[in-house]
């Protein structure tokens, strides 16, 4: 089945369900923003919700789910690998706060 045929056979109902889920998840982020928790915990929770939202949108709105498996794996693995690679410097971000302005 081609991508176009898949788009035709799926009803609009699935799109609306995903849309409502995304709205609910976006709402959840706003609820988390008013929780009385530490900023680091808030950051982790919001980021987790955002990743679920992004996953739903990529798979069902951008129809990555219906593409060839090889392409889907390429997009997911390549993107996540580079995004993870960008995280190497986080520990250095607290250098100024803890009073160590230069590497020791």
């Amino acid at each position, binding site marked *: 089945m081609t991508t176009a045929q898949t788009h035709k056979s799926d009803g609009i109902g699935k*799109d609306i369900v995903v849309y409502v889920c995304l709205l609910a998840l*976006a709402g959840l*982020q706003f609820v988390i923003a008013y929780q009385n928790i530490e900023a680091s915990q808030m950051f982790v929770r919001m980021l987790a919700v955002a990743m679920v939202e992004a996953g739903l949108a990529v798979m069902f*709105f*951008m129809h990555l789910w219906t593409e060839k498996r090889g*392409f889907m794996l390429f997009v997911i693995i390549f*993107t996540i690998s580079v995004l993870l690679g960008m995280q190497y410097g986080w520990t250095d971000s*607290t250098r100024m*706060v803890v009073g160590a302005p230069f590497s020791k």
Partner: protein
Amino acid sequence: MSQADLTMEGPSSGVTLGPAFSIPTKKLAMWLFIIADTMTFAACLVAYGFLRNGTPSWPRPFHSITNVALMTFILLTSSLTMLIGLRSARAGDKAGAFRWTLITAALGIVFALLHIREWMGLINEGMTLFKNPWGTGLFGASFFSITGLHLTHVTVGVIALIVVGVRYKGGRYNADDIEILGLYWHFVDIVWMFVVPLVYLLNLAH
């Protein structure tokens, strides 16, 4: 799909290759652009997080979530209208596809206007790229850079929606072009899902 799309003959004749991943070339190009743009936004957001994490006097200037909540709702809804437009195009309903594409563009314009209104509010409170009344001047630079980059994407998307919609109606573009533009529009929506919590919600004045 033309034969030219299906075959790619190099200097060594007789070698025939199919399109990469067996998807149309234009669609593959859009996906590759989206992956590259993901890295751009990710780099901006990581740099922003780095600065915020390492700066004790980071400002929390946002008192209300009303505007950003409305902007989020509008952008998410525009993704749904984009999907409806694509379904109409796939079904051969040209008028419907054109209408829903323009509705998506209109929602994008409303989003951009709300964004500019919010910017003007912050600027009127004394926030610029280099200073603000609440704390480190880095906040203005990072806020305007990230939201400005996103707003630029929305603006480009709105223009593209109008152009592609009109050309689709005129018969120069087909449903595949609507789908490819839809990929871009959904990507802009996904970026906003990360900008909202990191740039707005973590900086609410409690």
